């Protein structure tokens, strides 16, 4: 509540609404100008209007009309499903393990070298292995998404738990707070801002790895569409896919924040 008064001094409501749109609109304008002046070949760099048309076709078209018509709902549902499962697994493991290693020195010593070694391996290196282990399909994608999203969630939860002001614990102890209540009434809310940061970073990476996983020959999903369009030379569809992923990534980030704020007092008040 205080944030708007202290953190965003002198930013009026109008500029708050307008400022984020300036760069996207400017880019769009440049794009239109380049296309209108025919500075590039339309094949490599389609006109925005053609992209809009393809997007409309892809989202609202009738499947009998052409190769990409009306595939949107199907692709998006598969992609969202894969991201949700992968991200869910990452959060389910990352938050508890992170908090444990932030609070218990022995647990940190036990687990951190192993995890850091795994983290040092670029995510794409797991792709061949995952394909062999899980085959082409949802499991490979979910595995890659979960693996990639785990680390930011784990690391941020750990540092959030480690950096809790010890006075908060001492206050709790003198007010008769036991171990269990200490966890959900002091530890979690105090670490909440950093847990949220970890979840948001993890969700962003989840979308990136979703596309990687879907590039490997699955029939449905946004990554599959992009790969498919590349083979057929449909640059417009590739760009439509990219834009949809960007929009979905932003929406999922906003929804994540909204859900956390709805569920947790500490997220509402301190994040």
């Amino acid at each position, binding site marked *: *509540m205080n944030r708007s008064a202290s953190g965003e001094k002198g930013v009026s409501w109008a500029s708050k609404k307008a400022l984020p749109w300036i760069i996207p609109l400017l880019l769009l304008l440049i794009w239109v100008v380049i296309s209108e002046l025919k500075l590039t070949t339309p094949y490599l760099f389609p006109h925005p209007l053609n992209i809009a048309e393809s997007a409309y076709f892809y989202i609202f078209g009738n499947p009998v009309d052409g190769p990409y018509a009306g595939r949107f709902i199907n692709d998006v549902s598969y992609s969202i499903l894969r991201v949700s499962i992968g991200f869910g697994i990452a959060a389910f493991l990352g938050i508890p393990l992170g908090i444990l290693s932030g609070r218990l020195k022995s647990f940190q010593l036990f687990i951190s070298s192993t995890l850091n070694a795994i983290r040092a391996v670029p995510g794409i290196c797991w792709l061949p292995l995952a394909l062999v282990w899980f085959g082409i399909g949802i499991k490979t994608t979910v595995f890659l998404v979960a693996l990639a999203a785990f680390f930011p969630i784990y690391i941020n939860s750990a540092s959030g738990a480690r950096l809790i002001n010890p*006075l*908060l614990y001492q*206050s709790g102890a*003198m*007010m008769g707070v036991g171990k269990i209540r200490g966890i959900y009434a002091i530890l979690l809310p105090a670490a909440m801002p950093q847990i949220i940061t970890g979840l948001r970073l993890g969700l962003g990476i989840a979308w990136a790895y979703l596309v990687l996983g879907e590039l490997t020959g699955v029939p449905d999903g946004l990554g599959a569409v992009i790969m498919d369009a590349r083979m057929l030379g449909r640059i417009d569809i590739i760009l439509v896919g990219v834009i949809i992923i960007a929009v979905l990534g932003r929406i999922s980030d906003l929804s994540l924040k909204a859900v956390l704020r709805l569920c947790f007092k500490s997220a509402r008040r301190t994040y």
Partner: protein
Amino acid sequence: MKEHDFRLISVKKKAHRDPLLRSVGLGKIFPMGNHFIKVLENINLSVNSGELVCILGPSGCGKTTLLKIVAGFIKPSSGRIETHGVPISGPGFERCIVFQEDALFPWLTVEENIAFGLKGRINKREIKKRVGKFLYLTGLEGFGRYLPSEISGGMKQRVALARVLVLDPKLLLMDEPFGSLDAQSREEMQSLLLSLWEELRHTIIFVTHDITEAAFLADRILVMDKYPGSIKLIVDVSLKRPRRKETNEFHHFYRYLRDRIGLNSSPSL
């Protein structure tokens, strides 16, 4: 720390003959690299029920360590410390600290911070009543729904005071609680503390490095020395209450105290 304790403490509030708090030969050493530092040495003190005792000393004399031992956060290296003859074994709400810095829960409102220690001990309606009473007593009426980030430093220390007083502690421990406040808020808080003390008659150990503050508040002043931290001197404060800082009597006492501590009266100090 069990459920029934809370009510027991509320009922048992008559004066005790034996001291509420007693320490004998208390010492504390901390390891520092490959040698040890003596932080406290041979602390013998006794505090009676209802007393307001100030511990006065320069920074680094171990005042905070002593207070944390009384609170049960730190174990002494030698000697004994007990309340009513029972050794202190850990923290508990019968010995509550008001910390020097802000230690409120930032995700809870003023009301929720004050109610925090009561949760699970008494029912919701009782909690609401008690919280309301202490909001009133500490001058926080109307601020119940604010977050700690939205109120001033002085207000925060009022909340810190209210959230422990609401638990009805036998012993209120205060670790330079007004040290970071501006002069005016500090005076207000000192008066507030005294009026609460007169109303609730709890026992207070108040740590400070401010001679005026000690002279204004205390029944008895324990003057500490450093390297190692030890009690150098105990001064009974004979000034009548209510005290006023601008009276000649107060000035006399202040000068007497400075002389006893060994500070000369040169204006540079």
